[in-house]
């Protein structure tokens, strides 16, 4: 399979105008005494690409299987275009699903795999029985159409030369395409994907990721995509639903989850490398980090200890040439940083260390390299570096992990706050 072949613009033709709005209302599910889904409600708009993301065991796969009809919910409703799906078999739900390990039938050729859904939908039982099926008029009537449809999808997925092969003779990427093809031939309203990239190697994963995004754009189908990889969720989806312990932590656009996490778990899960956390304390109108205080304006009154989140790219290092930082302005909190380790990732560097105000908490700083990047300066420089932090990027969380929404009042560009000096 030639790499990098884009995944076609094709479905618009045979789709016509299909509306597919999916609603989940108060879905509950327990396995024995374990509650895996706690009152899940979600509306997915027609044509939307939504990712269900979370650690393993958070209930995301169960939710997907309930939508597919492979598992029955204990309570709650699933509506597709307003029609209740409760108790309907998977095949009657107008959905297609791509399984994590593809679940291709190993004894069937690629072509037979892909024609399965069509055979089941178009042929009556007697025309599906082995031995006699070839003699039935229904088989004779429908077979050419089925073959043509399979061929069309195969061509569009660039797997038409593989139709005679068995799944065992295919590469991982090819199997992935066959699984997509088997799902696409049936012309579904909703496309469900259960970690479809997790069995591919890293390079192929990035490639297929963009292909699936394109497939979504071109088909206009509603996609529900389950993954444990936040990068996949962030890069592919219109919206991300972050799950933990059977409930949504936050549902929103990728950037929303990144910039405005509802709680500390969201902040930690979204973003790579993980967000830095340091300790602080808030009184009604100021926040203190170490022994220095900043004025702050809280949306709701709060007193006490807080966790402060700082994204790795929100910290700027002074005095090393050739490092570029996002949003260079407004880095007005001055701090001292003890460098421990530098990782060169090619286009960017990751600097590990700790802030002088909290020497036991590991902090990562991410910086883009620019042309005159002074590797020697960075590696050779003393372990002590001066850094600046953008105050507007700080995220405050109360001890329970809930976000405290706030605005930092003063420190402006003209009036930097020195946090280090007092030590």
């Amino acid at each position: 399979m030639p790499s990098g072949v884009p995944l076609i613009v094709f479905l618009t033709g045979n789709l016509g105008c299909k509306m597919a709005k999916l609603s989940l209302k108060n879905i509950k599910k327990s396995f024995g005494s374990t509650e895996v889904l706690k009152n899940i409600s979600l509306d997915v708009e027609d044509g939307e690409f939504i990712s269900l993301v979370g650690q393993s065991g958070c209930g995301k796969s169960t939710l997907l299987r309930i939508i597919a009809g492979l598992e029955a919910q204990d309570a709650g409703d699933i509506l597709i275009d307003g029609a209740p799906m409760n108790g309907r078999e998977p095949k009657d739900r107008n959905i297609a699903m791509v399984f994590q390990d593809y679940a291709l039938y190993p004894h069937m050729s690629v072509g037979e795999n892909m024609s399965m859904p069509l055979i089941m939908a178009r042929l009556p039982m007697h025309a599906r029985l082995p031995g006699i099926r070839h003699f039935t008029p229904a088989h004779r009537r429908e077979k050419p159409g089925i073959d043509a449809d399979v061929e069309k999808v195969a061509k569009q997925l660039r797997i038409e030369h593989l139709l005679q092969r068995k799944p065992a003779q295919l590469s991982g990427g090819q199997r992935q395409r066959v699984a997509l093809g088997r799902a696409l031939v049936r012309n579904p309203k909703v496309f469900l994907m259960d970690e479809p990239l997790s069995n591919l190697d890293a390079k192929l994963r990035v490639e297929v990721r963009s292909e699936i995004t394109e497939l979504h754009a071109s088909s206009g189908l509603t996609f529900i995509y389950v993954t444990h990889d936040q990068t996949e969720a962030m890069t592919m989806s219109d919206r991300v639903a972050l799950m933990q312990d059977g409930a949504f932590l936050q549902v929103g656009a990728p950037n929303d989850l990144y910039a405005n996490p509802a709680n500390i778990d969201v902040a930690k899960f979204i973003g790579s490398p993980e967000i830095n956390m340091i300790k602080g304390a808030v009184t009604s109108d100021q926040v203190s980090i170490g022994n220095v205080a900043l004025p702050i304006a809280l949306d709701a009154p709060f007193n006490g200890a807080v966790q402060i989140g700082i994204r790795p790219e929100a910290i700027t290092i002074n005095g090393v040439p050739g490092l570029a930082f996002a949003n260079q302005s407004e880095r007005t909190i001055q701090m001292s940083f003890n460098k421990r380790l530098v990782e060169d990732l090619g286009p960017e560097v990751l600097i590990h260390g700790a802030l002088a105000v909290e020497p036991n908490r590991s902090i990562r700083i991410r910086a883009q390299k620019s042309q005159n990047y002074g590797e020697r300066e960075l590696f050779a420089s003393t372990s002590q570096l001066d850094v600046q932090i953008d105050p507007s990027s700080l995220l405050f969380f109360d001890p329970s992990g809930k976000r405290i929404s706030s605005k930092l009042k003063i420190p402006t560009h003209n009036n930097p706050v020195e946090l280090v000096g007092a030590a």
Partner: protein
Amino acid sequence: MSAMASLMQSKQTRLAYMLVMPAAVLILVIYILPIIIVFFVSLTDYSLVSDYYEFVGMENYEKMFSDEAFGNALVNTLIYAAIFLPAAFIVSLVLAIAIQEQKQFRSVLEVLFFLPVTSTLAAMAIVWAALMDSGQGVINHVIVSIGLEKINFLGSEDLVLFSLAIISLWSIIGFNMVLFLAGLTSIPQNLYEAAAIDGASHPIDKFFRVTWPMLGPTTMFVAVTTSITAFKLFDTVAIVTQGGPDHASEVFLYLAFLEGFEYFNMGYSSALSLFFLCIIFTFALVQAFFADRNVQY
């Protein structure tokens, strides 16, 4: 370094020979020499009764193919196999599928159906003979009570192979069922889920689209081993019918036993044994051939 390596190697080789020596000698004495001897004896008129024997060439084999008893035993074995094989196969498969879908009772049922497999067939054969007794057997009591004629299970030339097949069936169903259950359990559940999404949710579709093709290797294995078992029928014949009535249940292995150890026609019996080996070997080859073909998936 290389001297060191070869020293280690030779030490290992010596150890290896020591480890395989007992097994190799026993294989030679118990398998290889006897097979060679069987072949030579089959070319003689050797009989245990006298030490004098002479080479008779292919005479024993010629006798075999003109011997009425051999033809009769072969036909009996084939008839018996024709009754026994399909039933042993289909009943066990249906049972395995039904039991697999049982949630609560699965292990209880598995144990109950497997019970006959562990029991001593020779002992159970006399129980079956009593159950099938033409006059006062329990089965005939039941048959009479539903208004039918008594059946002479073991005394009728037409029915005796059928009755023996039932006993064998009883003793092997649990065995095949467990093999099928293992095969069924190894079918990935997500294939059934994919089939459900694709619309193959009817039991018939599930069976023909997923279960049957995925059971391929197990099916072949069960078919071959059951065939071999069919040709090895001996215990029930020896205990219950002794080949009767009127040689109607004289099957192949029993005939070979009689020729060798009752009449002491060692030469002829050896020829029969080699014929038997050829049959078993054919089955083994069929299995090996299909096992290779199945490697693909």
